[in-house]
């Protein structure tokens, strides 16, 4: 598998730290991953809902969800779709409780990536049998923010 460079770097630095558990516990209804580019982070911030950000590095202990939540994540990787789901998110979902509390996915991406636009959201939706709720590009427009804010309110009622 073609890991992203970030992960090559961090896992080689500390391979033993890759086990799950003992991470920060969160009861946020929205959990997300955003790389140092902060694009997804900016989008989530604009939603005005309580949200928890996954650690940037795979070697850090991942989050523990304690209530049903929606996941927001960008897509990594290239044409083949390999490595589309950020490793940090794979680690998070390998935790059974985190997986069972997942209710929906929102994908961030760029249509310029063609068939792999928001592919990571598709992959997780298929594997965890939850819906893809929405897709947005880069850090989202104000219309995306409005639609997701409203959509999430209705989704939880």
């Amino acid at each position, binding site marked *: *598998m*073609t890991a*992203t*460079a*970030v992960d*090559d*770097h961090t896992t080689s630095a500390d391979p033993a730290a890759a086990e799950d558990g003992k991470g920060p516990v969160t009861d946020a209804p929205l959990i997300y991953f955003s*790389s*140092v*580019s*902060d*694009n997804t982070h*900016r989008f989530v911030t604009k939603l005005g809902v309580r949200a928890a950000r996954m650690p940037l590095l795979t070697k850090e202990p991942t989050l523990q969800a304690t209530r049903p939540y929606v996941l927001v994540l960008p897509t990594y*990787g*290239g*044409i*083949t*779709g*390999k*490595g*589309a*789901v950020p*490793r940090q998110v*794979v680690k998070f*979902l*390998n935790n*059974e409780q985190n*997986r069972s509390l997942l209710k*929906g996915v929102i994908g961030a991406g*760029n*249509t*310029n*990536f*063609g*068939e792999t*636009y*928001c*592919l990571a959201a*598709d*992959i997780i*939706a*298929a*594997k965890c049998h939850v*819906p*893809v*709720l*929405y*897709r947005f*590009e*880069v*850090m989202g*427009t*104000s*219309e995306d923010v409005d*639609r*997701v804010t*409203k*959509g999430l309110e*209705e*989704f939880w009622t």
Partner: protein
Amino acid sequence: MSEKLKLVDQVQAINWNRIQDDKDVDVWNRLVNNFWLPEKVPLSNDVQSWATLTPEEQTLTMRVFTGLTLLDTVQATVGAVSLIPDAVTPHEEAVLTNIAFMESVHAKSYSSIFSTLASTKEIDEAFRWSTENVNLQKKANIVTDYYRGDDPLKRKVASTLLESFLFYSGFYLPMYWSSRAKLTNTADLVRLIIRDEAVHGYYIGYKFQRGLESATPERRQELKDYTFELLFELYENEVQYTHDLYDSVGLAEDVKKFLHYNANKALMNLGYEAMFPSSVTDVNPAILSALSPNADENHDFFSGSGSSYVIGKAVNTEDEDWDF
């Protein structure tokens, strides 16, 4: 080039085992994995389709591609290279050399399309048009002038606007042909270029934002004002250029929506809010779908318009990574 290009002051051996910014490695790997050459695309399968275009449509297509060739040439020989002395890490320098090379590959790709589809006379005429079109020359000159300026962050803004905005008056056309099942192999090649430009715009925009982190509030405001001024200047010229090209086939208004949509993404790559409202960014769904089959409205679960609960698409799941 008329004047001497500034070079990096001091060079040290690049150590890929000591990384200051993980994004450099991430983007390097992405670019290397995405590497391609035009010879891999069976362009000759488009010869029959080309013959079904009217003479006007053929002329338009040739002009669009010479325009794109000019921009790629600017980006390869001036743009990406001019960013190298400003690089903060040695790995950023290496990524920029990769970007510069791929821009040369892109520029050469259009020549592959030309030689497959058109006669030498038609090719020469299209290149002559590109040197004589005022708006095309102006767009190249505006960007080139900023590259030669003395402000590293302004160079990054100009570069991101070129990568993420200025190409799209041209990229529209192969997507349009593809949506009508014409020149589909050419469209496949252009999609590879679009994908590369997306990584370039993302990366240079990201480096711009890193550069802003240490800037004073006044300097940040100056750069924001500058970005929007430059975008407006380029946008006005781009509208003229779009009319020059597309009025003959009645597509100019449709192209402009695509320009607005991409201008918004260019701004977002630089960390700024989208500027054009959704009322003018409603890109023709056929064009969006030619760009990305995933982009249609049916994927908006909230609106209740689609069947997104069922994911029919086969995806690579990398089972070795998952515990379930």
